[in-house]
């Protein structure tokens, strides 16, 4: 860490500007550009079409206001546009990006920890746990009083509880068994999703029930500026932690014992990662509901592009996940205008055929090129 701080230009050059890494570096720049334009497109698409020029004006004006500068120019845009851009669409796009990146790296991390390409927060029941936690708050009525924090914390606890159960069940004579992991994940997933259904069934009002149902199918509709900081911090911490341990993750997917003989304390690392994934799942599920398939498909897609080295898989997964979810949200909002489809349906409808395609390619070997 200290060394990195002192020699960062050198480290940067070694990391990214060498010939062998050129491809990776260009890919990062390319994806970042795509992400930027996708975000602009997402802000401008909707019932009211907004031009890039207008978006720019509003954002610059708002930033100046935030910085305490006086706005000398007369307001050219009407208030309604400003409201749509700044209060509705922008937070929604940012949340989409964060959720996509978060879910994608949660998938990467779970697959590495479980040493199983099937693992992802949804398949292992972690998200179901989060949904039960959140539904308890929503149906239980605490929702109004505690705002997003109540749901987030409850969802996080649910996620953590489900994770703990899955990992305890997957142990056989002190070691994690890969097949047992998937089996216990499936069982826990069913247990929690039926608990959520039960809670739904017991919901008092029809309106309450509808809200929970819509939320269960996933939506970025709940995006507001105040939910963004938690999501941002959780995703940022997760990305930095995983990047710092990328080398160790490589050893871990190769095998538990391999990791240990290469000096990696895989037990501790696994616990940290599980906590982190529960935090990501809890935060994202409490705000956006159940958005399936992102954490499962994106890591595979990325491995297909850059191989299994986590130093490349993690940053690329973040970008691809963010792009994918923002794009799905554009579709969700525009297919049956002015109505809105739950985004979970779109991610699954886009993700599943794609995954079937890469499975059909017989030589796909989860990371092989």
């Amino acid at each position, binding site marked *: *860490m200290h060394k*990195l701080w002192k020699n960062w230009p050198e480290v940067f050059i070694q990391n990214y500007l060498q010939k062998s890494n050129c491809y990776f570096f260009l890919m990062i720049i390319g994806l970042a550009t795509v992400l930027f334009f996708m975000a602009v497109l997402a802000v401008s698409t909707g019932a009211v079409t907004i031009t890039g020029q207008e978006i720019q004006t509003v954002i610059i004006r708002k930033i100046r206001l935030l910085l305490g500068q006086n706005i000398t120019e007369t307001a050219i845009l009407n208030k309604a546009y400003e409201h749509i851009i700044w209060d509705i669409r922008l937070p929604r796009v940012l949340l989409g990006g964060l959720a996509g990146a978060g879910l994608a790296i949660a998938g990467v991390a779970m697959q590495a920890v479980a040493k199983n390409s099937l693992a992802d927060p949804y398949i292992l029941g972690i998200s179901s746990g989060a949904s039960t936690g959140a539904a308890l708050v929503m149906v239980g009525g605490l929702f109004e009083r505690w705002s997003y924090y109540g749901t987030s914390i409850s969802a996080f606890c649910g996620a953590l509880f489900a994770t703990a159960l899955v990992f305890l069940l997957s142990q056989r004579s002190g070691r994690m068994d890969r097949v047992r992991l998937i089996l216990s994940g499936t069982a826990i997933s069913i247990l929690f999703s039926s608990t959520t259904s039960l809670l739904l069934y017991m919901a008092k009002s029809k309106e309450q029930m509808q809200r929970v149902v819509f939320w269960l199918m996933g939506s970025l509709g709940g995006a507001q500026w105040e939910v963004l900081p938690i999501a941002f911090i959780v995703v940022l911490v997760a990305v930095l932690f995983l990047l710092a341990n990328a080398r*160790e993750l490589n050893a871990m997917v190769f095998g538990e014992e391999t990791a*240990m003989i290469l000096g*990696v*304390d895989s037990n501790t690392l696994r616990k940290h990662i599980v906590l982190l994934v529960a935090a990501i799942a809890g935060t994202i599920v409490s705000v956006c509901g159940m958005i399936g398939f992102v954490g499962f498909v994106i890591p595979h897609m990325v491995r297909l592009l850059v191989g299994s080295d986590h130093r490349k898989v993690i940053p690329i997964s973040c970008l691809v996940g963010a792009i994918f979810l923002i794009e799905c949200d554009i579709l969700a909002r525009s297919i049956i205008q002015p109505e809105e489809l739950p985004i979970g349906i779109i991610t699954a409808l886009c993700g599943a055929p794609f995954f079937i395609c890469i499975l059909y390619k017989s030589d796909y070997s989860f990371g092989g090129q």
Partner: protein
Amino acid sequence: MAIRTEQVSVTLGNSKIVSQVSIQINKGEFVGLIGPNGSGKSTFLKALYNVLKSEGDIFINGRSSKAVSLKELAKEVAVLIQENSAEFDFKVEEVVLMGRTPYKELFESDNNADKDIVKAALEKVNMLSFAKRSFIKLSGGEKQRVLIARALAQQAEIMILDEPTNHLDVRHQLQLVDIIRSLKLTIFSALHDLNIAAIYCDRIYVLNHGSIVADGKVNDVLTTELLRDVFGIDAIIHPKNNSKVYIEYIRAI
């Protein structure tokens, strides 16, 4: 003394798999560990490289291994085991680079020195031309050679191997042990092929039911009585030069 153990025992669940094993391995020696299936070879080795908890004392280069972190241990002992990533694929050079893990701090990247070490390691096992190939598509013998290169990249003086020649055909078995021998490291290897052990080892420890039942030079250890009592086979021992032997198997008892 590279490796020394005092009364090492390992208990898994309720059964004692290894009981009170004491061994000594000098720097530069090639020492074999033989014994029938289930005799506790792998378990004992796992205790040696700190993957399993054990009772008793283990000293690596004079330091108690229990006082050393996994990371420090990985700089002194490289291990070759039978464990392959079944689902995630890496390039050969990426696999070998993993050997540099114990030397790296958080966020630290690979520098040119690491790349040179990887290149040299691959050259030693004759796999340099495979550097960009996919690891899981290699044959068994090629994989083992890559894993040896990874162990070499750890720049440890001691190498512990758990049945490195498993599943290999005769030619690749001999080739692999030749490579291991040529590394001039301290080698402690579990071997299932007695004749390979007889050809390459300076000394042999024989493990049966978790205890050492014989140790010493090849021709002192591999006797018809031992093969009958420990391995349950009838065999004829043909003496060769340099206290080596050749074992002709007759039948199982």
